[in-house]
């Protein structure tokens, strides 16, 4: 039975079998060949994309050092606290939230809410916490035995000196990227190369240890050594800040100290400043107070805050060109002398004003200076005389001088945000115009704008022998091991005037301080050169009707062999009849009186100055701090200003007391700081020099009695007040000396 019908059935079986094995399986094999051999690239890439996680490893950012190796900006390891809600059991939420809330100082509910989404593997709850906090978090996680809390390494930027050189250093923003200042300009140098960890992970984001993994180590960033000197920067900032307070400077102040012979920037400051550790907080208490008057998070509030932040981050020295006023007369004078159109004995008459093509230009001294020599004209800072000098130079040569001094283009310093003042200086056409009105105003430093940096660079060239240098602020680049990769060499741009002319300018600027408007910058024992500047903000007057001034002073020291040039400008101080001579000069004098000894430049006193060793202290209560300091400096005494006020309210020692030359008078500007005391050190048994050093180092004054302390056997035998007493700083300690080598 099977045999007769078997054939048909067998045929049908063969058909079915062939259909399944050849047709169906053939189709599947073809399909596989397409997916696996010819056309699977896209799927393959997508597979790799989802399996491979590339995790960035932060590179440690390089350190920023001052010229002496002090760390101005440094990076440290911090930790991010991450929640992994997918690994958090429901009953763990409560203890985790409570524990973290306490450690991180956050709301418990907020943390609990972050635990809620079980599909998440990354919830950042603690951003950049310190090692100590991280340890606490770790302990908590261990104690709870949870897999739901992890730590992630990160780095944070620290500025150990707080607001020191804030606008110069800048700060880092999100992802540790340089946002302002050197941090931004040298971003590539400092940043290093982030490493990457490429690893295969499972769909839950866990590394597959035994699978593909590649690690590219992070390369640490290079470090920078600045030309800035932390100590000099500190002096400059301290006096700038005091100046802003004492003269109620409305629009901030800028100061710069340069090495006269290289144009290295030793200090560069803008006041008020901010703390780059907290760049978003307002550093200026006035602005903060204004901000607090506004409704928080209102549109005005945010706008005010944004503007205030932007303002405080601005490096005024390079970003805010201003009318230099009479300080610029140094350039006018140098050009006239160099071009041979004037000599020191040429005379100029000043009647209090002069008229150029119908425009009247008044002198600051309405009565006029009368007939004066070139030297006297610059001592007097006489405008009509300089208008005449400018006219002798002529528009074409004047314009050429502008270019030669580098005043018509940015200096190219290695800092971001340098203003391009090309459109703010008088054009060639304007200067050579018939009538010479623009030439006249330019001659005494008005109707054009340059930055403090440009002006200071030009002054350096005028006094250093005539060479214009490229200013710079980064001295060296170091690799992470501290090896020097590159060193910036001073770069002479061009010779702008001859050595002879430069020598003459040195003489003239010294005369300004000795005999002329710069007297308030005098420091006994030192030869100081300088030039005052008072400029009207004419554009502001035209635009808003507000009559405001910029007062400035440039100091050159020592005047016979310039080492440093210090330029300070105060933008909109509020004092009636204020001049650069009375306000800015003492600030520069105060700065120099501290910087010069620090630089190892010792005072050389004249015989007259040496004659009286003990100095009688005057009365300084009621004065503004810098005037008091200037007065003390001229008495060859030092001043130490304590407090945040704008007026001296007390002094130690008091008026009429005698202290030795070089002694310190402490000036208090607010009540609070008067409570400061120092402990009197013991000096009995010490030699004269030892006793002096010990007492001065303690911030006190010494008054010597008894034998001449120069005698080899002179020893201190008595002191008053006694050792261990608490007294205000500056208190006079009377010490009796006996010569113990001479037998009774």
């Amino acid at each position: 039975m099977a045999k007769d019908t078997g054939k048909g059935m067998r045929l049908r079986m063969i058909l079915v079998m062939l259909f399944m094995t050849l047709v169906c399986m053939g189709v599947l094999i073809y399909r596989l060949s397409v997916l696996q051999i010819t056309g699977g690239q896209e799927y393959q890439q997508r597979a790799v994309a989802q399996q491979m996680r590339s995790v960035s490893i932060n590179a440690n950012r390089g350190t920023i050092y001052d010229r002496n190796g002090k760390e101005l900006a440094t990076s440290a390891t911090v930790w991010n606290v991450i929640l992994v809600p997918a690994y958090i059991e429901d009953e763990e939420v409560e203890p985790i939230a409570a524990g973290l809330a306490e450690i991180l100082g956050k709301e418990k509910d907020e943390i609990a809410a972050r635990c809620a989404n079980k599909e998440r593997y990354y919830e950042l709850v603690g951003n950049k916490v310190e090692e100590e906090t991280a340890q606490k978090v770790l302990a908590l996680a261990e104690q709870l035995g949870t897999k739901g809390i992890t730590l992630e390494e990160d780095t944070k930027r620290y500025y150990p000196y707080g607001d020191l050189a804030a606008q110069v250093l800048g700060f880092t923003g999100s992802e540790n990227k340089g946002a302002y200042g050197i941090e931004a300009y040298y971003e590539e140098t400092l940043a290093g190369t982030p490493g990457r960890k490429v690893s295969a992970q499972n769909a839950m984001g866990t590394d597959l240890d035994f699978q593909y993994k590649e690690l590219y180590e992070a390369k640490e960033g290079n470090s920078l050594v600045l030309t800035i000197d932390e100590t000099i920067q500190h002096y400059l900032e301290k006096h700038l800040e005091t100046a802003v307070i004492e003269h109620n400077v409305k629009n901030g102040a800028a100061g710069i100290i340069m090495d006269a012979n290289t144009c290295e920037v030793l200090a560069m400051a803008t006041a008020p400043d901010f703390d780059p550790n907290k760049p978003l907080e307002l550093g200026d208490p006035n602005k903060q107070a204004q901000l607090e008057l506004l409704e928080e998070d209102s549109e005005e509030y945010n706008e005010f805050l944004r503007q205030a932040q932007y303002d405080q981050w601005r490096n005024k020295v390079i970003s805010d060109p201003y009318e230099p006023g009479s300080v610029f007369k140094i350039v006018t004078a140098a050009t006239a002398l160099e071009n041979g159109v004037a000599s020191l004995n040429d005379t100029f008459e000043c009647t209090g004003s002069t008229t150029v093509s119908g425009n009247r230009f008044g002198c600051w001294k309405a009565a006029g200076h009368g007939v004066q020599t070139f030297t006297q004209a610059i001592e007097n800072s006489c405008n009509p005389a300089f208008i005449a000098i400018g006219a002798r130079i002529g528009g074409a040569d004047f314009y050429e001088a502008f270019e030669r001094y580098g005043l018509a283009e940015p200096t190219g310093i290695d800092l971001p945000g340098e203003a391009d003042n090309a459109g703010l200086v008088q054009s060639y056409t304007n200067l050579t115009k018939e009538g010479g009105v623009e030439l006249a105003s330019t001659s005494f430093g008005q109707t054009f704008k340059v930055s403090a940096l440009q002006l200071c660079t030009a002054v350096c060239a005028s006094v250093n022998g005539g060479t214009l240098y490229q200013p710079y602020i980064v001295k060296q680049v170091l690799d992470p091991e501290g090896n020097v990769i590159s060193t910036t060499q001073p770069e002479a741009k061009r010779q702008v005037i001859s050595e002879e002319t430069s020598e003459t300018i040195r003489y003239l600027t010294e005369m300004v301080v000795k005999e002329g408007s710069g007297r308030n910058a005098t420091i006994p024992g030192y030869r100081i050169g300088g030039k005052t500047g008072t400029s009207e903000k004419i554009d502001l007057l035209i635009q808003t009707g507000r009559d405001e001034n910029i007062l400035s002073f440039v100091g050159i020291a020592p005047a016979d062999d310039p080492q440093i040039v210090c330029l300070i400008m105060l933008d909109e101080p509020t004092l009636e009849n204020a001049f650069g001579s009375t306000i800015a000069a003492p600030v520069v004098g105060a700065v120099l009186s501290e910087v010069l000894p620090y630089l190892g430049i010792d005072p050389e006193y004249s015989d007259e100055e040496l004659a009286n060793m003990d100095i009688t202290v005057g009365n300084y209560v009621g004065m503004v701090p810098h005037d008091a300091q200037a007065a003390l400096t001229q008495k060859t005494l030092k001043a130490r200003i304590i407090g945040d006020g704008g007026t001296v309210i007390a002094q130690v020692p008091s008026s009429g007391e005698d202290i030795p030359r070089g002694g310190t008078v402490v000036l208090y500007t607010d009540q609070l700081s008067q409570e400061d005391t120092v402990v009197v050190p013991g000096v009995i048994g010490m030699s004269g020099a030892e006793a002096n050093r010990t007492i001065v180092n303690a911030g006190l004054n010494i008054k010597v009695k008894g034998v001449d302390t120069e005698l080899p056997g002179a020893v201190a035998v008595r002191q008053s007040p006694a050792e261990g007493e608490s007294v205000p700083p500056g208190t006079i300690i009377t010490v009796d000396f006996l010569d113990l080598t001479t037998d009774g």
Partner: protein
Amino acid sequence: MGLFKNKKEGQPLQAEKGTVDSSFLVLVLIVLTCGLVMMFSASYAYAYYYFDNSFHFITRQLFFAVLGVFVMMVVSFVDYHVLHRFVVPVMAVTVVLLVVVLFMPEINYVHRWINLGFTTFQPSEFAKFSVVLSFAHLISVNYSRMKTFKYGILPFALILGVFAVLLMLEPHLSATVLICLIGAVMMFVGGSNLKWFALVAAVGVAGLALAAMNEDIIAYATSRFAYWLDPFSDPQGKGYQTLQSLYAIASGGLLGLGIGQSRQKYLYLPEPQNDFVFAVVCEELGFVGAVFIILLFALLIWRGFAIAAKARDRFGSMLAVGLTTQLGLQVILNIAVVTNTIPNTGISMPFFSYGGTALVMLLAQMGVVLSVSRQSSLPKE
């Protein structure tokens, strides 16, 4: 293999003289071994992650494999003719199970599993065997009348109709399709009149359409269809499994990443030990390995049909045809799903996918085929 040559003939419930088809047996054991190895590899990470034990699945599967081989060998000694007596009980039990399963708790919105406590069990697996058995019985009994509608079409259509409706109530589209295809192949081989075939096909389609009147079923089927055409339309949702499978297959390339080296099995591919185990095979063994596995199955199908062709009688022949066809269709449909050649349906890969009862059942069915082969050398009835 002349071990049983001297046994007495004609005794029911005892093996007839003759030897099993050794190449079929060897192929089954080779495929089973490959399947176990690859299931272990595919399930390794999943088991580790969800059960803290990489051996979670393989230990269970090994136990059932050993049990299954034992069952297969025992069954191969049983004279398959005894199955004639079981046709009605098996049918009855199947219907009961298919009804009972509808009252089981939903898993993933469908009622497909009966929980026996120590394992779960799909009545649809049993229904497949039921169809093969009943069809083989009917064809062998009514062979001479297969051209008629009454004997060649009607009983088959009734059985398929009842099963199909019950399965669609679960709903279980893939099992329905599979059972219909197995039935159709057996009817075709058994000699049903092809003109009736067209009619039955039309009725079957109508039946499916009727079942599809159920909105749930429409939604269920059409969504699978939509994501078949463009899995990227919902890469994280409905298209996810298909895409992950394609990623795995494409990652394998020509020669594969090497055994154990699949990356997709690390929780990307959902439940890699189940329906999509072949994707991991493709990823680890590449095109070459995948084709090798397919060829093994092709040989198995060839041997199955060879056994059917040489069978002592029509019942044995149709049993072998039905069981081999079931195996072949599952392999083809599974690979078609894994490669997204057809829409994603729940069809497991014989010998490869995890599932204890299914494996034992499959091996028992292979035992039936072996039992058929054992009598092929005997004179035809």
